């Protein structure tokens, strides 16, 4: 898309409210309903779609770029990977993988599908049954193609990815897991991490849940937290990262994710003070919140009064 700001006719530094105002103005002008009698209504409709797309693109940037949860960790993985496909084409998360095989074959029985995930053919041997048992992680190999490069290769520094296939046997690649950790355990963690990077949260969840409880160390909780966050399991996400920090208080990565839950962080945290958030709400406790009691009592009183009035009238006073 060409510069969305110029499509909308706003300054890139404009505030969100200014952008919204401008959008509304343009939208009123080019909306199909407003152009029924316009001989150029097809162009108007085209322009309308363009304006919509531009507005959405700008607001997506403004609300998701670099703020709290949406840009943290797991979705950073995701964004790097999908930026190759382009946000407009594949969409982040949803339409990209629904067009591949995993939605058809499911991951339990036949495996992750033939085309594999995206363009890299990971899991062509199938994730469900064959993957980490006999054939290993799949033919494309873990991290050989796009997602290996962008996502964790850079972060860990030690590059436990693709080329140095043997090096991760000499040190633990995952926090909390020692050098002698069983390969089957590591495979599960790698699979989960990979799924997470690609936004396949349900698959990541299944992979993680597959790991025996005794083998769930701090890194498992770290991955689990991000997986839960992706699945919008907010309680689980928080409890998991809390556990990870508890198990390994010195880990900077865990701490960073845990701190992202602080009340003044993120998009919401930075905005709420501007819109009336105060840490004490004493003034407003006077509201009666139970939907029923006040009205109900009034009704009861009304009936009682009615009865009293009626009986007074009836028995003559």
């Amino acid at each position: 898309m060409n510069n969305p700001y110029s499509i909308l006719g706003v300054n890139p530094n404009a505030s969100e409210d200014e952008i919204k105002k401008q959008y509304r103005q343009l939208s009123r002008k080019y909306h199909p309903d407003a152009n029924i009698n316009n001989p150029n209504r097809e162009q108007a409709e085209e322009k309308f779609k363009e304006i919509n797309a531009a507005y959405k693109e700008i607001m997506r940037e403004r609300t998701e770029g670099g703020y709290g949860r949406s840009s943290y960790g797991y979705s950073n993985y995701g964004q790097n990977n999908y930026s190759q496909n382009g946000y407009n084409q594949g969409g982040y998360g949803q339409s990209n993988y629904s067009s591949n095989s995993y939605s058809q074959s499911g991951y339990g029985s036949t495996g992750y599908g033939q085309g594999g995930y995206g363009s890299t053919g990971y899991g062509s041997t199938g994730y469900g049954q064959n993957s980490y048992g006999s054939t290993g992680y799949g033919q494309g190999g873990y991290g050989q193609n796009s997602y290996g490069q962008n996502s964790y290769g850079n972060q860990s520094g030690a590059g436990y990815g693709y080329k140095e296939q043997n090096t991760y046997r000499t040190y633990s690649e995952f926090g909390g897991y020692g050098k002698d950790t069983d390969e089957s355990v590591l495979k599960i963690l790698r699979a989960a991490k990979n799924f997470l990077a690609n936004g396949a949260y349900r698959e990541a969840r299944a992979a993680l849940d597959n790991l025996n409880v005794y083998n769930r160390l701090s890194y498992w909780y770290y991955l689990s937290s991000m997986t839960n966050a992706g699945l919008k399991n907010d309680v689980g996400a928080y409890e998991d990262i809390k556990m990870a920090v508890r198990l390994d208080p010195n880990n900077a990565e865990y701490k960073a994710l845990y701190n992202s839950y602080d009340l003044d962080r993120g998009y919401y945290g930075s905005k709420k003070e501007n819109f009336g958030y105060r840490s004490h709400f004493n003034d407003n406790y006077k509201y009666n919140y139970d939907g029923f009691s006040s009205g109900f009592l009034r009704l009861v009183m009304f009936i009682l009064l009615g009865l009293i009035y009626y009986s007074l009238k009836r028995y003559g006073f």
Partner: protein
Amino acid sequence: MFGYINVNKAELKFIEYDIYRSYYLGLRRNIKKRFGSLAKLSSSYDMTFIVLLLTGLYEPETKCETHRYLTRGMEKQEERYNEFTDYAADINMLFTIYKCLDDWHDEKKVMRLIYGNILKRKEKAYCDRYIKRIESIKACLKDFTDAEKKGGIHADDMALLFGRIMGEILAIKDDEWNDELMDLGNALGKFIYLVDAYEDVDKDIKKGTYNPFKKSVERAGFTDGLRKILNMIMDDASREFEKLPIIENVGILRNIIYSGMWIRFEKAAEKKGEILKKYQTEEEDE
């Protein structure tokens, strides 16, 4: 699910409060007219938010009338209503009936059962325009109540189910704003469910009814943790909200989303003796 979406009155401008109230009164009158006085017994503040949100997004033709109220010393009050008022009144009915049957089921309040059945007869007054939407909301509500009755379900799953109801309510037109409204509704629904569960946990422990926080509420720092979780949920909600091109009454809506939503939770927290301590990153000279 009543009385969770509130305004922070202290932080609203006078004019904003008057407008909010006008939509509220318009809604109340609508409920009374179409469903009878009996239906008015339930609170409508939450539905007022829905009217304001949809009005802000779609800017429909809105009528404004004035009426005198005895309870306000015969002072003239403005009442605003539009197509979304009808819709919100329907939703209010749905939830009122649900709450009645729910209270009967949980606490055996006979009056509620009677009340609920009386209201059920008025269901044919639902707005034709949104009948389909009402049906899908009812279906989501049923999923939720089934899960409640089953019991033993994790807080997140229950919250998601309730969130879906709210999402269905907000995503009224199935248009280009469907995703944002759905996600906003999901987040608000989750928030409401968790606050409700938090409020009821003591009662549920005593009665032995299901509550997802039964086992965890006594842990140290539970309330602080829940507050952080709720904060994260509102983070999602606010981002989706700000994606919507709402100008009209955005001040009221922001007051609700950034501040008013917390009132009920903080009230419950205060009752448990867990007032929000100041932020850790507070400046020292504060």
